[in-house]
């Protein structure tokens, strides 16, 4: 019986593919000579084949959906992050617009100092620009964060940003008079001026 237990042990080692060459040849020799052990070995082999032949069974089609609905809810932050990852172009455009708006708004708020375009015959009194009576100012006049009183003549446009213009009955302006007190108007003014400057540079070339 001890011999039989040893042989059965070797059979299992053989089936586990964990047997030495010597033990395998010993087992083969024994199986050739012993009918009982041969029958036992064939039964073991048949058992393995039968178990391995068990048909593959698959989970139900809605298995994944059921699992996902059972999971704890993900944080909103994560959902937002995933949306951003899935829409890189929209994210980039949005970020650009936000940064641009921030920059422009910052610039608009920073431009709170009084300033005026340099023309020789303009007078400045406490953030009030005056075109004196009888004087003619050639070129555009831009006043920022201050007011303008026109008693003389301006050959060009008058633009007042965050201020007011006062046109005396004797005063005259050949171009347009424009008051800007909103960010979008100011932005449009900046774009126009930049465009003009570029156009002038190109013309000079």
């Amino acid at each position: 019986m001890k011999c039989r237990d040893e042989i059965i042990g070797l059979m299992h080692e053989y089936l586990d593919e964990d047997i030495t060459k010597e033990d395998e040849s010993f087992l083969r020799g024994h199986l050739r000579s012993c009918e009982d052990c041969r029958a036992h070995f064939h039964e073991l082999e048949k058992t393995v084949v039968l178990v391995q032949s068990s048909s593959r069974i698959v989970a139900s089609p809605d298995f994944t959906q059921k699992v996902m609905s059972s999971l704890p809810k993900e944080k909103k932050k994560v959902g937002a992050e995933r949306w951003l990852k899935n829409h890189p172009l929209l994210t980039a455009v949005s970020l650009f617009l936000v940064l641009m708006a921030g920059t422009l708004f910052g610039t608009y708020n920073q431009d709170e100092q009084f300033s005026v375009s340099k023309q020789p015959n303009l007078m400045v009194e406490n953030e009030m620009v005056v075109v004196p009576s009888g004087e003619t100012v050639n070129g555009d006049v831009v006043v920022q964060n201050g007011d303008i009183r026109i008693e003389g003549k301006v050959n060009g446009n008058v633009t007042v940003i965050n201020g007011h213009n006062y046109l005396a009955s004797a005063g005259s302006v050949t171009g347009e008079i424009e008051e800007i007190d909103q960010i979008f108007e100011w932005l449009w003014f900046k774009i126009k001026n930049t465009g003009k400057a570029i156009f002038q540079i190109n013309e000079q070339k």
Partner: protein
Amino acid sequence: MEAIVKLRIKQVLKGDQNAFAEIVELYKDKVFQICYRMLGNRHEAEDLAQEAFVRAYVNIHSFNITMKFSTWLYRIATNLCIDRLRKKKPDFYLDAEVAGTEGLDMYSQIPADTALPEDEVESMELQETIQAQIEKLPEKYRAPIVLKYIEELSLKEISEILDLPVGTVKTRIHRGREALRNQLRHL
């Protein structure tokens, strides 16, 4: 496949649930198969397979990324099945055996729309017999047999899943095989 899974795990760790859905898709049939072969009941197996994935998701932060994910997942599923077998109460399911009918289950009591070919019936009966004999094995032999012959895993992987020395796994497979030989020799 492991490389894709590891990538998805990193996304899950960042909180992306959609990445976990891909992991479920990859492993659902394997996990369900283990649970079914261990429990012998589709309904119960599906419940436990789903529970295994939920537990994997909840505890994913404790997964060692250097380890094989399937090993970790199968360990969760196998442990759930073993726990269920240990405290199993008789339940009423359609695929539960009908008392005194030698292997017939509730499904077989529902009239079939079409007659099955004889070969198919024989094949189904054989499958049911094999599954019934697997279920008769004590749980400590059943798990290694299922993992070795149905999931076709190596002894090393089985030892990692069951958290047992390779020698113990070998002994249990030998004993499980012998028990099945006794039960299936008449086929």
